[in-house]
């Protein structure tokens, strides 16, 4: 039930593979701490892979928004990758789908970062 986050680097982009539930409590905290840690290390191009995220509640949505604005405020970029149908629908309902830059293939997402920074 708990959320896990692991990070890897591809072409200067930090990919965060998330799995589990991003909900009030542990899930939201894991996401918050992960993004805070990355920004602290100067890693400001972040791709959140939500392919294995089964569920997000309002707290989790808030945490995604907070991550997005934190990264942007530091001159970085945060994109979302591989939304499940549930998460996709939730972002549509809350009108956040067009706020986030959502990608459905990793290579394309990496390229999008590169283009935006040249």
């Amino acid at each position, binding site marked *: 039930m708990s959320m896990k986050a692991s990070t890897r680097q591809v072409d200067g982009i930090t990919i965060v593979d998330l799995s589990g539930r991003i909900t009030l409590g542990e899930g939201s905290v894991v996401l918050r701490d992960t993004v805070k840690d990355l920004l602290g290390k100067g890693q400001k191009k972040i791709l959140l892979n939500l392919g294995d995220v089964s569920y997000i509640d309002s707290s989790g949505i808030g945490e995604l928004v907070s991550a997005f*604005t934190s990264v942007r405020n530091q001159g970085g970029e945060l994109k979302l990758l591989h939304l499940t149908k549930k998460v996709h629908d939730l972002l549509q309902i809350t009108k956040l789908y067009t706020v986030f830059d959502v990608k459905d293939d990793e290579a394309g997402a990496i390229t999008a970062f590169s283009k935006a920074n040249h």
Partner: protein
Amino acid sequence: MTAPQRVSYRLESTLESVNKAEEMADQIAAQVGFDEDTRGGISMAIREAMINAVLHGNKYDAGKRVNLTFEQKGPEMTVIVADEGTGFVPEEVPNPLAPENLLKQSGRGIFLMRTFMDEVRFRKSSSGTEITLIKRLQGNDPDRQEAST
């Protein structure tokens, strides 16, 4: 018509209670006959109501409880979440879909409850706030249900 089935719980103001209520909502929604997608919406709405009660109402106070009631009446499922907090005015919660609020971190819980349920009512009581959430199986005329409430 089958007799209403009603079950109530008195829960601690903890995250465990939020998770437990969400699981129970899914199980009861399955018994009523809701499909998987609808059950997901119902359990999310109940989760949000419980978060409202535990976090915003009771503020995790160990001395305060959340009363949770499930009622199944034919094709209708009613859930009542009552906290012991100081209360709030739902109309004063900013619209989370307004452009100026889209990037706010909080304020989406009530919107999600209303999105996934047919009716959501708030009532301020002497002991706190009570949220009533109702969902009906599609194809059932709500007016016929109201006659018996």
